[in-house]
């Protein structure tokens, strides 16, 4: 569809933003037309999030000029940005947990009758907003009582409800199931047709090709190019993002598969997953595919000992480990890389080396003395191996970009020298370069004789890495597919098929 005739909704001319240590956005021009979906892609740290935050009014010290509907504006606070019709859906959920859905939806613009809030109107409005995203919840329920993907939809409804003329979506699908993604795309289409300008940020390139009209690629704080989606291929986008050819990755090596390192028999945690049987062998990469809420992460948490199993046995390298604590399992070489690196994976406020060594503290002691210097050599090697940047181990983890944080998290689990490593969404929200490093590391790990389980919603990732893929649905394993059966389409189909247990 041609959107030029609707006019420019947003024009950013020569904008820049500098943090104390880095330049995040460097003299970028960016235009979005009304009535288009404009994808913004780039590696982590390329500056797209900063650019969007600038648009949302998070900074009052950016340079350059911004025009909204051909009017020069100064977006120095969220409320000013909002007043110009800019709405933003954040990657991290930004809902107030203890507060009701209605008040979250209508935050800052509750309907009033005179001085007071009009409660009936508030509920009615909230219901209407929830309907736009296909939710039928009691608007007076606190957000903490609803599930995470419902909350993600509420977040979308909240922003859409402000009727913005420019809508920014930062990875809106990361927590959604396939059905919900479809619903979201419907919503996006509808909004676009009303003349809204939509900026869509995603690492998930197929999505972009499905819904975007144009795409802008950023790299190293600069804009690389803006293209109509018809004029560009996936490979070209990737090349622009990383500056090298896509052919270098997506190749699967085969290697011999050894003895069973992890055996799970009839494992259940009531209400989360039931009757799980699984064997993972040395040198094997097993993918677990399923929609969010299928119980994948919960399964991993029970295997590694964070939560207790209600039933079943787990055997690690011939040794039952049901009664061991997580610390003991880690000592035996069982690691679990979580999907939430900020909350569960890394201690963002402490140094990189301490993060890398955090899982091996008990191994590093001499007598009763522990000193992080004992492990510094190993930490340095891991940083080099995983090309984590910056390389200075004294930096706090929070100062790293998303991709480097993820690599740091992987380094932490590599440090335990894992026999079995479970990776939960190992490359969620990271750039292509980091993703490549992570995949190579996983493959090397398998090559060197470890058993690896990869839990992922990223189907190409599963197809590429896995020797076998197990489909998990609603707490049960429903299907196991060998490498030759696996394709994105077959996995998708399997994950969404109802199977009798």
């Amino acid at each position, binding site marked *: 569809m041609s959107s030029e005739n609707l006019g420019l909704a947003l024009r950013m001319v020569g904008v820049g933003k500098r943090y104390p240590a880095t330049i995040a956005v460097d003299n970028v021009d960016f235009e979005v037309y009304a009535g288009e979906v404009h994808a913004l892609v780039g590696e982590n740290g390329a500056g797209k999030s900063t650019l969007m935050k600038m648009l949302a009014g998070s900074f009052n010290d950016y340079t350059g000029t911004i025009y909204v509907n051909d009017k020069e504006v100064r977006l120095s*606070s969220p*409320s000013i940005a*909002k007043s110009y019709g800019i709405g933003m859906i954040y990657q991290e959920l930004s809902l107030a947990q*203890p507060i009701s859905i209605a008040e979250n939806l209508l935050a*800052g*613009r509750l309907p009033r009758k005179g001085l007071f809030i009009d409660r009936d109107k508030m509920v009615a409005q909230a219901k209407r907003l929830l309907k736009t995203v296909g939710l*039928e919840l009691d608007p007076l329920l606190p957000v903490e009582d609803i599930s995470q993907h419902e909350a993600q939809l509420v977040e979308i409804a909240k922003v859409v409800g402000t009727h913005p003329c420019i809508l920014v979506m930062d990875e809106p699908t990361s927590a959604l199931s396939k059905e919900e993604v479809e619903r979201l795309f419907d919503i996006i289409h509808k909004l676009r047709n009303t003349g809204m300008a939509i900026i869509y940020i995603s690492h998930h390139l197929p999505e972009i090709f499905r819904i975007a009209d144009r795409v802008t690629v950023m790299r190293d704080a600069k804009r690389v190019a803006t293209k109509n989606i018809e004029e560009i291929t996936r490979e070209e986008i990737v090349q622009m993002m990383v500056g090298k050819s896509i052919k270098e990755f997506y190749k699967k090596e085969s290697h011999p598969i050894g003895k069973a390192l992890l055996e799970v028999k009839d494992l259940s945690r009531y209400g989360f997953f039931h*009757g799980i049987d699984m064997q993972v062998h040395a040198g094997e990469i097993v993918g677990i595919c399923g929609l969010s*809420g299928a119980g994948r992460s919960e399964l991993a948490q029970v295997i590694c000992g964070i939560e207790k199993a209600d039933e079943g046995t787990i055997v690690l390298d011939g040794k039952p480990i049901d009664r061991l604590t997580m610390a003991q399992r880690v000592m035996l070489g069982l690691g679990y890389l979580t999907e939430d690196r900020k909350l569960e994976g890394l201690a963002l406020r402490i140094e990189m080396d301490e993060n890398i060594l955090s899982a091996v503290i008990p191994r590093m002691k001499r007598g009763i003395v522990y000193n992080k210097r004992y492990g510094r050599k190993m930490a340095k090697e891991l940083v080099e191996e995983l090309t984590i940047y910056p390389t200075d181990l004294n930096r706090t983890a929070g100062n790293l970009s998303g991709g480097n944080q993820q690599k740091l998290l992987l380094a932490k689990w590599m440090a335990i020298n894992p026999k079995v490593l479970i990776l939960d969404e190992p490359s969620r929200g990271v750039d292509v370069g980091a993703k490549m490093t992570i995949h190579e590391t996983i493959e090397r790990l398998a090559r060197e004789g470890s058993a690896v389980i990869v839990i992922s919603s990223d189907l190409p990732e599963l197809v590429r890495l896995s020797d076998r893929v197990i489909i998990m649905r609603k707490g049960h394993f429903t299907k196991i597919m060998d490498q030759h059966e696996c394709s994105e389409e077959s996995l998708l189909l399997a994950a969404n098929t109802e199977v009798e247990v």
Partner: protein
Amino acid sequence: MHNKPMDKSKLLAIGDRFRIYILFLVIFIFMSLFAPRFFNSYNLTTILRTVSMNATLALGFSVVMICGHLDLSIGRTATFAAVIALLLQKSVGYGLSVPIAIAAGVLVGLVNGLLVVKVKINSFIVTIGTMTILQGATYTMTGGNSVSLSGSNVFAISDFLSRPLLPMLPPRVILTILFVLLFHFFVTHTQWGRNFYLLGGNKMTAWLAGIHTDAVTVSAFILSSTMAAVGGILFAMESSAATLNMGENSLMYVVSATIIGGTAMSGGKGGVLKSVIAILSLEMLYTGTILFGLGNEVKIFISGLILAFVVLYEAYASYKHERTLGQRSELLKEVAMLKARVPK
């Protein structure tokens, strides 16, 4: 997902939400039935008068707590303002001394709030600091003595405040009730009031919603200190004197009552009315212990137990909540089947 029938957990949740009202009624009925001379107008008036100061303090304090902060300086602020009001009364009269004293309260809140939002010091720390400063200031102003009202008709104001105007309700109590209602409607029915909840629930949400979070936080601290000042001044007017440690006991009392009332330290939850009802409940309990002729040790023991129980219960509830978050109900139905299948 929708229109679920009222199950047991939902009933429990409602019970949880209204627990303080239930507690209030239970204590009220128990004391009325068993405590000698509890259920008569004089005693009930006494209780209402006694809670007036702490209830006033609890209003602002609860707002700060809903915002996710703490204000430990309320007790000292109450004393500080009362002392100012009475000291200046000698030279400038009530007409000026009371507004000045209230302004002093506002100033304390402003300083607290600015230190929290601008210098970004934890409110717990800031208010420990202001607490110390206010104590020194109060003592310095008075030279270590308590301050009494002076003038030709010293008792006029205190008599007016403490004699019932309506049945059982002296003006001081009426004022307190007015404050309570005002605050209640303020936090539940106005945009600004709801902002406290939003801010306490998630600062980011509030900020992104275009709410001036710093202004909201500072206003919460100002409300807290101002209400502390008002409470202190009224108490001093009623006693026609301000003592140097009159607010000292209030802090822990108000903190425990607010927690028992269901306002969470994490912010975003609770309400001013609940805090006041909690104070009233505790006060009835204390009155009961006095009427039964029991000593302070019983009172301290009981209030400690109630507080400990409430904190423990809340912690346990959220612990449970966290453990079962994301459980699938249809899978739970399978459990019985599973158990039958696997012999143990």
